[in-house]
């Protein structure tokens, strides 16, 4: 079913538009007042967005995350989650200020309000993606990747907001230096362990639940979400305050994201090896094919050994169908029990067509 025919797609589109509108209304006047600082901030931040986007997509061990789904996750984080977090955080911190007082709010307000609002908003991006494209999130590794991408989008938007805030905090006396200072402290010093890492942890847990719903996976999802909020709270807390201590403060967050990635990766690769073996025994894959499928560079290499045109297109379709067959077993929302058999038929048909063409690769 086309993504646009699902209600979640329209929810995603509407929420991104609303978020962008809220953010624009809030920042428009300040951007116009400080154009040089704003442009400097954008010039610094856009390359970090591009680099982060590339790196997080490539962290999948077998195939890069599809660019369309990755863009959906990043835009949710950067527009929908960021835009809605502005009024939600303001209201939450105002409630804390009114009930607990300004002294408590100054110290702890951000570390209470931001984790609740922002982690929920960012993680809803992964849920929305899974609802509009059930095959996108089939396990913890997908959840980790799309969570990290939603967090990255949020992080870059928030860093732009901090550029503007720093210009105001420095009395609008040195706009470009303020942008550079903000970039240095928040991106060079803190980007390694910021929103992308927290939402990756929550996303990995959510991926477990969406892949195979059970009490155990629900507990893992809940635990990962609480951990993501706790890490966010730690990051925003007044403890270990100071730019120089950022690496120390960020270490547990980065460590949690790395551990979540390693566990998710191991689970994915274990399933990958089990399934390729089973499909080889079944005769759907030919011996050695699982090894080619497992490595991006081998797939690219064999592609160039096949003549351009129809044979190369057939090979690409064959590999895509095989990877789809392997990943189908991971689970996901709205799982189709007949999909595996259809994919096996597709693989057999494509292999027959490829063998009949002149571009038969060594393992096909």
């Amino acid at each position: 079913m086309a993504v646009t025919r699902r209600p979640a797609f329209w929810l995603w589109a509407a929420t991104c538009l609303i978020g962008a509108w809220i953010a624009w209304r809030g920042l428009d006047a300040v951007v116009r007042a400080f154009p040089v600082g704003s442009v400097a901030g954008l010039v610094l931040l856009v390359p970090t967005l591009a680099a982060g986007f590339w790196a997080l997509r490539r962290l999948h061990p077998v195939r890069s995350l599809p660019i369309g789904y990755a863009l959906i996750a990043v835009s949710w984080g950067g527009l929908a989650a960021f835009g809605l977090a502005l009024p939600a955080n303001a209201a939450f911190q105002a409630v804390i200020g009114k009930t607990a007082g300004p002294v408590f709010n100054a110290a702890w307000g951000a570390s209470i309000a931001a984790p609740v609002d922002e982690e929920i908003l960012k993680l809803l991006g992964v849920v929305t993606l899974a609802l509009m494209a059930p095959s996108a999130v089939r396990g913890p590794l997908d959840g980790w990747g799309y969570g990290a991408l939603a967090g990255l989008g949020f992080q870059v938007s928030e860093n732009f907001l901090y550029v503007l805030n720093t210009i105001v905090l420095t009395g609008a006396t040195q706009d470009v230096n303020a942008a550079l200072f903000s970039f240095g402290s928040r991106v060079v010093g803190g980007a390694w362990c910021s929103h992308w890492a927290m939402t990756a942890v929550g996303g990995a847990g959510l991926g477990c639940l969406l892949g195979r719903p059970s009490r155990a996976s629900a507990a893992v999802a809940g635990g990962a979400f609480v951990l993501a909020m706790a890490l966010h709270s730690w990051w925003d807390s007044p403890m270990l305050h100071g730019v120089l201590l950022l690496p120390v403060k960020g270490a547990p967050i980065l460590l949690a994201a790395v551990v979540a990635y390693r566990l998710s990766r191991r689970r994915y690769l274990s399933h990958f090896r089990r399934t390729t073996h089973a499909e080889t025994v079944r005769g759907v894959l030919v011996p050695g094919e699982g090894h080619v499928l497992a490595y991006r560079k081998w797939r690219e290499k064999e592609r160039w050994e096949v003549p351009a045109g129809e044979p190369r297109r057939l090979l690409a379709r064959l590999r895509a169908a095989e990877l789809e067959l392997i990943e189908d077993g991971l689970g996901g929302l709205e799982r189709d029990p007949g999909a595996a058999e259809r994919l096996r038929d597709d693989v057999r048909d494509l292999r027959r067509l490829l063998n009949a063409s002149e571009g038969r690769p060594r393992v096909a």
Partner: protein
Amino acid sequence: MTRVRWWGTGVVALVLLILCGGLALVNAALGSGGRPVAPGTVLSAGTPRDGMRPVTFVVPTAGWLLSPADTTLTSNIKLLSGDVTVNLNVVVPLGRLDARRLWDGLGRIVEAGGQTRLGAGPAPLMTADGLTGLTGSITGRDRTGTAAVFATATLGATMTAAGPPHAYVRLAPEIEAMMRTVRIRSPWP
């Protein structure tokens, strides 16, 4: 788990609504939450060092409320008296700071608010503590007020006060007295 496309999307929309609408409703239900400030109270803002916030001022008379919703003690304090507001903002310079540059910067910040602007030609101002700064008027369509800036080598502060003309004129002496109590203690030895 099958066919979650409708109810799943509904749950996401509901969570978004509760998170954004619910918090705004709770905040509105709590009212302004203004906390009365006793005459003579010393208010302080800025990042604490050795338990002290570096920028302070005294509220000289009764009738002022501290707005907890718009106050972040690490960077600013907002006081209300009817429709008149007073904002103290801490300025952390990245290089050498002087009052004239700070006045020009404040002019851009005030203009970004879209309702008021700073008057030209600020006059020198000296606080009771001997801190020198600049002060001048704030003008807008339905608002009038006063601004002051103070700069030291390591830290600065701006204070803006504005409100409807008739209300502001009544409180102007109190506000000017408040401005003359601003103190900046350098957070660095």
